């Protein structure tokens, strides 16, 4: 009997201990200590879209370095751990598990790529790790519940803008879609299909390609045969110049237009004269424009990454990180996954100083900015052709 009582006492003490540790310091959240916040990211540093990965990571680190040098956010320095997923979904899953379970990251921040981020979506939800501003503007992040939050106008929203521009402004009815056959390409492709239907039109050709494909001569032939006057490029920076080249080689010169991932200097560097006149949608200003926020960006990049050229890719990472830091400021000293999400969601009309304001809420989209404007390649440079427009919520229906 006494032994039983002893056991009960030990058990009671153990339960007590568990309860006590469970209700310990409030910031006993993974990846948060008194002095540090650890954020994780999966990037493509050596694969098909490495140009994006390397630059986004640098842009985010430029902000974190500046903030850390000034003492951090509420006394905590930000440390970014990024692993290379080579733009391959299976590797992204392994990396995410390593980040969450071994490195105990606080949040996933700026995770690159639509197919790669989609591969870890359910895992992050299961582990209740916020997926903050993934480096993919697919609409899935804006509509998938509390653990995901996007930053900019989605590919779906942008494609609606493209279709409206082609149909209403350019009076083009024969429109074709060239898309990456995965969650990235399909987002804009299907949204475009839906928008065309509302204009009582349909794609005259739907031509796909696989990630990391390098030859598009058969796609060029199909597009030419369809007689499309405009081709929407749901692609990244490597395919549009090659496709344009191969279309021109068979004497086919449609209007090429695509969402934000094609609006990088690399597209022009690779394509040369073949991308002259190519159009794109821009969702944040160019690195060379005036503005206090851009001055800060240019100074930080020069200080921390003097060897990297100023480019839309690293500016993308930079504005993400700046927005995240603002969210952390608002979350206060008591930093939890919940409080940082609330902090981000409390951002309204926040103006970092470049003419664009960030606001959460107001409609069903979990994003911070909903604007876009059209740009065109002119004299070897992306040049704006329109003003910032609030984009409609583009869907697949």
């Amino acid at each position, binding site marked *: 009997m006494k032994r039983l009582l002893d056991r009960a006492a030990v058990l009671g003490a153990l339960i007590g201990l568990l309860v006590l540790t469970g209700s310990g310091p409030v910031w006993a959240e993974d990846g948060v200590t008194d002095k540090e916040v650890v954020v994780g990211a999966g990037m493509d*540093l*050596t*694969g*098909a879209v*490495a*140009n994006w990965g*390397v630059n986004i990571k640098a842009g985010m680190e430029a902000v974190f370095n500046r903030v850390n040098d000034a003492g951090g956010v509420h006394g905590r320095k930000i440390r970014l751990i990024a692993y290379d997923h080579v733009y391959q979904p299976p590797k992204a899953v392994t990396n995410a598990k390593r980040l969450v379970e071994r490195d105990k990251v606080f949040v996933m921040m700026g995770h690159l790529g639509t197919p790669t981020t989609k591969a870890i979506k359910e895992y992050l939800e299961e582990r209740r790790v916020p997926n903050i501003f993934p480096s993919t503007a697919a609409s899935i992040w804006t509509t998938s519940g509390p653990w995901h939050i996007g930053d900019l106008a989605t590919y779906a929203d942008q494609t609606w803008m493209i279709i409206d521009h082609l149909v209403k402004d350019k009076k083009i009815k024969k429109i074709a879609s060239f898309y990456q*056959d995965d969650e990235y390409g399909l987002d804009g492709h299907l949204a475009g299909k839906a928008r065309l239907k509302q204009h009582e039109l349909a794609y005259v050709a739907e*031509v*796909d*390609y*696989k990630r*990391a*494909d*390098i*030859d598009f*001569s*058969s*796609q060029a*032939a*199909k597009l*030419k*045969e369809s007689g499309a006057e405009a081709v929407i490029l749901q692609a990244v*920076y*490597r395919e549009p110049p*090659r496709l344009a*080249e*191969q279309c*021109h*080689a*068979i*004497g086919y010169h449609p209007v090429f237009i695509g969402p934000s991932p094609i609006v990088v200097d*690399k597209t022009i*560097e*690779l394509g*040369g004269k*073949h991308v002259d006149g190519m159009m794109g949608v821009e969702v944040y200003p160019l690195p060379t424009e005036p503005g206090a926020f851009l001055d800060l960006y240019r100074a930080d990049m020069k200080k921390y990454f003097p060897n990297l050229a100023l480019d839309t890719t690293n500016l993308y990472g930079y504005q993400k990180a700046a927005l995240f830091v603002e969210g952390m400021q608002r979350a206060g000293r008591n930093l939890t996954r919940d409080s940082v999400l609330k902090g981000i969601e409390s951002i309204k009309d926040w103006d970092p100083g470049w003419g664009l304001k960030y606001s959460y809420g107001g409609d069903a989209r979990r994003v911070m900015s909903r604007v876009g404007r059209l740009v065109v390649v002119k004299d070897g440079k992306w040049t704006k052709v329109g003003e910032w427009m609030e984009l409609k919520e583009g869907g697949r229906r």
Partner: protein
Amino acid sequence: MVEILTSQVVSGLATGCVYALIALGFVLIFKATDVVNFAQGEFVMVSGFISYTLLIRFGIPYWLVLILTIVVSGFMGVILERVVVRPIMNAPIFSIVIATIGASTVLRSAAGIIYGYDVLPLPTIFSKDPVRLGVLNFTAMDVGVIGSSLVIMLILYLFFKFTKTGTAMRATAQSQTAARLMGVSVSRIFSLTWAISAGIGGVAGVLIAPIIYLDPNLGFIGVKAFAGAILGGFGSIPGAIVGGMLLGIIENLSGYFFNAGIKQVSTYILLILVLVIWPSGLFGAAPIRKV
């Protein structure tokens, strides 16, 4: 329709010629030394970066760059043979093959560390503007690539057929012992074979990099060329050439008639079909059975 089909065939043939050059590199080394060199694709990639450096960083004229690239690639082949392959020449073939895979990873990472993983455009002397000739639709680039490849193949043919060294190389491929007895330095022939294979890889690099852009992952094109070599009958030189060319054309046509997914696997489906019907490939000699 006819015009589009012919343009598909011509551009497929251009890519196919590059596959054929890489496949030749595979087959030459295999014939002489029984080793399958999986770093063959990396020769292509490295030579692309060599010509990029010479052209862009040093501003050397194109024709000189072409010669220098071939020479430097050749040296790289010799170094690889001396440093990686020769010390383990008596190890099982399997180990040597793994060593070449290791070498390919090292070369790929080295290129990544030096040049970064960014995609770079490599200039070319051939124009990418369209040319029309009746029903034929092509670019000067296509013709240039096809022509250059054929010239290289012709030079190789003449070399093997009419020079003393070429004859010694063929002899070594047939029987190392007999060649040695006839006074051929087999180890020198091995080095030379690697140099030639890497040099051909160099030509392939200069030809293909301007088309599909330059990055450290360019070497993966070697996998397709390898499939081309098997298609033609691994070990057969005409087989490597025809197999590579065929592969390029079929890839393009399947992409045109079907979708990107089919295009991606079409070469492998064809490969399996050919091997089922002709187990030793299109040009492969029937296996000799020992009795």
